[in-house]
């Protein structure tokens, strides 16, 4: 967090809401984007990612709240007055213009001199590896090439912020991987802030400096990929990113930072601050951190039956069924196989369990339900 504080803020979204009729699409969004970073908005379909991006671009107006770019409120600025550019998912290349004219469009609007435009366009096309394509029309390009033109066209104005709405969504997997690397390379090279929308978590984890996870219009967590994966702050984040095992229960005993937590199928001891006796808690343990033993383990009262074991590549995946029917996923590098139907005791190392407050979420939900009704 300290590192971020010395960085310059470039986009600031404060208390932004977007309501379409009775559909509350973006709820009280607060988000700060720093100069030169690659920030990804990640969330399932319909959670409001595109809407957020469109509000920054100026195609939609927030129902309430403020958006600032470099400290300046942009509410009254038309899209053409904003120093941000967009790469559209559908490319949105102008079909009646050549690649050259498409890329030159932004510069022509700025009334840049012809010779200068030519130089810049050629450089930009070179940069996106499309040298020699300038006389072609969009219909004569492949999907990946169109995507590059769209990126070149948006980058040529050297915007302060580049907004990308699932720019690779229409590409096949291989091309997508390749374009991910290229985009990242471009972003580093040009040092332009990217706000990138995707619903592909792998894409988000590999490309982003920070990820902002949204669910149903509510920002869940913002952090580095490692942060998000290792310390999810909401149940949604824990289950949305990667696989996890979630135990929901409450704090039964507390001594210093040691707590005993009861869950439906048993109980266990964990370390963790910030909880009080009786608090509702969700405990997330990633499959690769989950351990099992054939004899009871001190501090853990979780017992289950081995349901299934399969090798997936070099990884042995085990599914253990708890007494309440919940299935626990365990992954470990190849080791001794357990007999199916055998009894095992689950445990994990200190620090591998992530504690998440759930009371607040339930409470907030309840309040919202009441207010909405």
């Amino acid at each position, binding site marked *: 967090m300290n590192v971020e504080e010395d960085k310059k803020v470039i986009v600031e979204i404060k208390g932004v809401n977007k309501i379409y009729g009775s559909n509350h699409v973006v709820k009280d969004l607060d988000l700060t984007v720093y100069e030169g970073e690659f920030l990804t908005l990640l969330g399932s379909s319909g959670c409001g990612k595109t809407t957020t991006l469109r509000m920054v671009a100026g195609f939609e107006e927030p129902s309430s709240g403020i958006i600032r770019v470099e400290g300046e409120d942009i509410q009254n600025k038309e899209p*053409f007055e904003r120093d941000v550019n967009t790469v559209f998912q*559908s490319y949105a290349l102008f079909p009646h213009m050549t690649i050259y004219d498409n890329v030159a*469009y932004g510069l022509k609007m700025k009334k840049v001199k012809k010779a200068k435009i030519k130089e810049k366009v050629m450089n930009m096309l070179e940069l996106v590896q499309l040298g020699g394509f300038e006389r072609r029309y969009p219909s004569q390009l492949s999907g990946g090439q169109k995507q590059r033109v769209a990126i070149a066209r948006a980058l040529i104005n050297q915007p302060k912020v580049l907004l990308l709405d699932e720019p690779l969504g229409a590409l096949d997997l291989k091309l997508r991987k390749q374009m991910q690397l290229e985009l990242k390379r471009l972003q580093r090279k040009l040092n332009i802030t990217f706000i990138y929308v995707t619903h592909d978590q792998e894409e988000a984890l590999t490309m982003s400096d920070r990820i902002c996870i949204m669910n149903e219009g509510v920002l869940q967590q913002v952090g580095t990929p490692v942060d998000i994966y290792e310390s999810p702050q909401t149940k949604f984040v824990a289950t949305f990113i990667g696989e996890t095992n979630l135990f929901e229960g409450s704090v039964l005993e507390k001594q210093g930072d040691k707590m005993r937590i009861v869950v439906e199928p048993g109980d266990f001891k964990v370390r963790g601050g910030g909880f009080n006796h009786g608090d509702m808690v969700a405990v997330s343990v990633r499959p690769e951190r989950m351990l099992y033993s054939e004899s009871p383990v001190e501090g853990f009262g979780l017992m289950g039956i081995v349901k299934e074991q399969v090798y997936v590549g070099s990884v042995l995946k085990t599914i253990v069924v708890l007494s309440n029917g919940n299935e626990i996923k365990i992954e470990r590098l190849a080791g001794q196989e357990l007999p199916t139907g055998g009894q095992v005791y689950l445990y994990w190392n200190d620090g591998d369990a992530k504690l998440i407050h759930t009371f607040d979420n339930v409470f907030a939900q309840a309040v919202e339900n009441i207010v909405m009704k």
Partner: protein
Amino acid sequence: MKKISKHTFRSNTLPAMTTVGPVSLWLLFFVAIPLLYVLVMSFCSLDESYNVVFKFTAENYARLMDPNYIQIYTTSILVAFFTTVLCIIIGYPFSFLIARTKWKHKALLYMMVIIPFWTNSLIRIYGWRTFLGTGGWLNHMLLMLHITSEPVEFLFNKGTTVLGMVYCLFPFMVLPLYTAIEKLDSTLLEASSDLGAKGSVTFRKIILPLTMSGVFSGSIMVFIPCLGYFFVSDILGGGNSDVIGNLIERQFQSGNNWPLGAALSIILILITLLLVKIYQKLGGDMDSLGV
């Protein structure tokens, strides 16, 4: 206006015959033969009692250069030109509005343009005559409001003919324009704005070029009938703004000179073909003409 892919029936000609056959027959009897008839007729001559005789002559074509006729061609082209321009000027914003309104009943707006044109156009043109005539509604109103002291003659000039033509042919402009504007991808407009273009620039650089095909087909569909809609200039123009159609009609009716009428018709057909050729050369799409 879907494009029908051009199939080639190489292996199986029988099914091809059954599908293409009736259409070919239809075309043969209702297009090719009548056309041939008109063509032959245009080279025939008249005897003393104005009967058509099959005696070859090119005189009908020579008479087409008559200065009086050239005057009518000029008027005709002027009327068609102004009608087309007016249809574009009114039709474009109009089509734009109904094609891009966010209102969910936009089909209704569209129908409101089309439905009146299901009634006979002759009747509607007469409607204009009663409305604009010296004893008509408009003059009644003007007199009642003391704007004028005597009835004004609105009718019987080129202006009223153009008005009638615009009124009759307007939907033919709106149809292709609406289609072209409707299918314009709105993200292109957003992209243009995003790249720094003001609304007027986006209109000039993106919207207009991408809907030009609609303007072209609309123009063709208005200009060509305009040359032939004789009843409009008859009723509203009162002989002061005859179009080629009037000339042709007169040869077949009062003039009783069918060969000359046929020659004029052939010329009109040639003009039409020429315009369509130009349209194609400009990159026009034949499908959007509905042919």
